């Protein structure tokens, strides 16, 4: 098999004294959906942010598309082709949907803006209806759509999604996850998905990793992990 699109190699990250990630090794191959599941505080969001250079990895390397991005400035990492829908969505609340999308296209100077705008509006027609509404007045689900659409505006080769299902109604979660699957199937977009909602994530993912206290404790195919009793016990209590 060829080189993975994203390789996380022995990465360790910390906030001052608190070590949040220890020797994390994860590969994301081009065209895959890979998910990372773990409990609250396991370090999932930290890994997402570390890929973007803040906090920086104290040890290990992060390699994207063959080049080492471990020490790159965050904005250069974004320019190299990674986009993120961050935890909590982080919509620009007082800016309109349209302006939020413009910010998403900032990386390539808006060269393909109109084309890409049509594309994300085709994926999320709801956003088109609300184009001039300010981001902060959108519903949670619409904000999540906007966060994903905003990330797509930079034409990324790798999309990082941090808990897109957080706080959303089941129907909206399904819509979001269906969209992710579609993007992956039809456009071959590589997705690295972080979730607490293990059931949906594992069903969707080609491969999965489990993070516990900053360490990867398990990995395997998505459906394969879903079948394991210890996963069922730890992450799927009560069923979904």
């Amino acid at each position, binding site marked *: 098999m060829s080189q993975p699109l994203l390789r996380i190699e022995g990465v360790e990250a910390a906030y001052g004294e608190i070590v949040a990630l220890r020797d994390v090794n994860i590969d994301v191959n081009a065209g895959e959906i890979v998910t990372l599941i773990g409990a609250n505080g396991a370090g999932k969001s930290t890994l997402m942010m570390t890929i973007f250079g803040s906090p920086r990895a104290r040890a290990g390397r992060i390699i994207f598309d063959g080049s080492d991005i471990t020490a790159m400035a965050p904005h250069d990492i974004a320019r190299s082709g990674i986009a993120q829908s961050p935890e909590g969505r982080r*919509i620009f609340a007082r*800016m309109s949907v349209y302006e939020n999308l413009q910010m998403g296209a900032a990386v390539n100077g808006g060269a393909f803006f109109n084309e890409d705008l049509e594309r994300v509006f085709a994926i999320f027609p709801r956003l088109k209806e609300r*184009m001039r509404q300010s981001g902060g007045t959108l519903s949670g689900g619409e904000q999540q759509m906007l966060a994903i659409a905003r990330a797509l505006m930079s034409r990324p080769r790798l999309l990082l999604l941090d808990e897109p299902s957080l706080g959303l109604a089941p129907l909206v979660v399904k819509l979001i996850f269906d969209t992710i699957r579609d993007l992956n199937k039809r456009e071959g977009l590589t997705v690295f998905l972080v979730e607490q909602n293990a059931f949906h994530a594992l069903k969707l993912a080609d491969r999965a990793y489990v993070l516990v206290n900053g360490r990867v404790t398990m990995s395997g195919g998505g459906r394969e992990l879903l079948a394991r009793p210890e996963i069922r016990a730890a992450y799927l209590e009560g069923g979904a």
Partner: protein
Amino acid sequence: MAAPNDRPRPVLQTALVDAGFAGLVTFGLSFPLLAYRTEQDMQNQLVVEPRWSLSLVAVVAIFCARLLAGLIQDWRARALAIPGALVAVYGGRLALVADPATGAGVACVGLALLAIAFPLDARLRHAPAQVARSEAPDRGGLFAIGGLVALFLFPFIMLAWLGPAGSLKWINNFGVQILIYVMLGWGLNIVVGLAGLLDLGYVAFYAVGAYSYALLSTTFGLSFWICLPLAGLLAAFWGVILGFPVLRLRGDYLAIVTMAFGEIIRIVLINWTDFSNGYAGISSIPRVTFFGVPFTANDDGFATLFGLEFTPIHRTIFLYFLILCLALLTNAVTLRLRRLPIGRAWEALREDEIACRSLGVNTVNTKLTAFALGAMFGGFAGAFFAVRQNFVSPESFTFIESATILAIVVLGGMGSQIGVALAAVAMIGGTEILRELDFLKQIFGESFDPAQYRMLIFGLAMVVMMIWKPRGLISSRAPSIFLKHKRSVAGSMVREGHG
């Protein structure tokens, strides 16, 4: 604070309770401040002089204003009713205390305003809002053009009306003085309002600009038009100098460091006497010229050249247009930048720095450009200040200046250009007006100096603002992008979802 039960309370009752509460607060505030004053009597002993009526007027006035605000919903009707009520109260007091005839007349005028306000409110409230909304942009444009024409005509109208001697005060103290603060407000607005970086030391750049012109012109004999860009550049340079150490700071910490920066600049100017002449300041700074032609009574002066009779008002009017153009330049640049990627990046930075970073925004450059540009306009304003005063000293650049400029930005609604301008007019014009209110002496006694109550009034105004409009005068943010086909988006789709 609202009643726990869901049934809507009658409007009158709610308004009464609210107004009663406001009246109580006013009583509490005015009691220690207004109700008593210590005086020295014949034996040179301190005696307490009660001034209950003053306190009572304040309480009644606030009660009425608040009550009306509760009963009247449309802001235009309120703008009529509240002054009406205040005039009526004032007239009532005048009638009781001093002059029954005049007082009654004044009270009638106030009551008449009130009488108009109520039916007006009822009409406006039921006017179709949809129509008003779709016409708003056109009206905004007209309003702006009308405002500009008025600004350009202002000195000439004043001159024609009051003559050279009478108009000087209005053009200088009101026109020029307000426009300086409009410009400073707009400059700081880039940093605070757009980029969201709380800067409490903005006066430092004003000082850099002022001393740049003062020193460059007195030592090297450079003209104002050469010094102006240099002053802007130097201020921008200091903006970057300040920007670097505070890149990682936000909110309170940023405020503290910028405040310290402002003080450091001032203290350096005080203590580095070889450079800045310390407290004594720099005097005989060259006055402004009409592109090289001095405003003097000489044969080569402005008046002779244009065949006019010499009067100092020519210079003042020129200064007025100079600061007007500088302020408009600030506004034009800001409006333009808001539509460019850098301006949008400032606003995005204000909203969420982490999101910005993950979208590939270079936050370091974005912050530094905001600091540099804001500082540059402060520097321009400073150079203008120096050429207007012909004298600069560190005393003009104290923290209270920074606080005033910041207050203008905050009151204006953080980011709204027109809001900042209105706030500057209210705050600076308000201060000047206080000096003019001589008639208040008739009510409150000869020793009453309204200008001394400036800070108290500012404070009260701030408190009222925070209750009434917590996000500033103009809190709605105008989108920087206007779609070409406005009507292609149906009205029902763009309405903001307030629940």
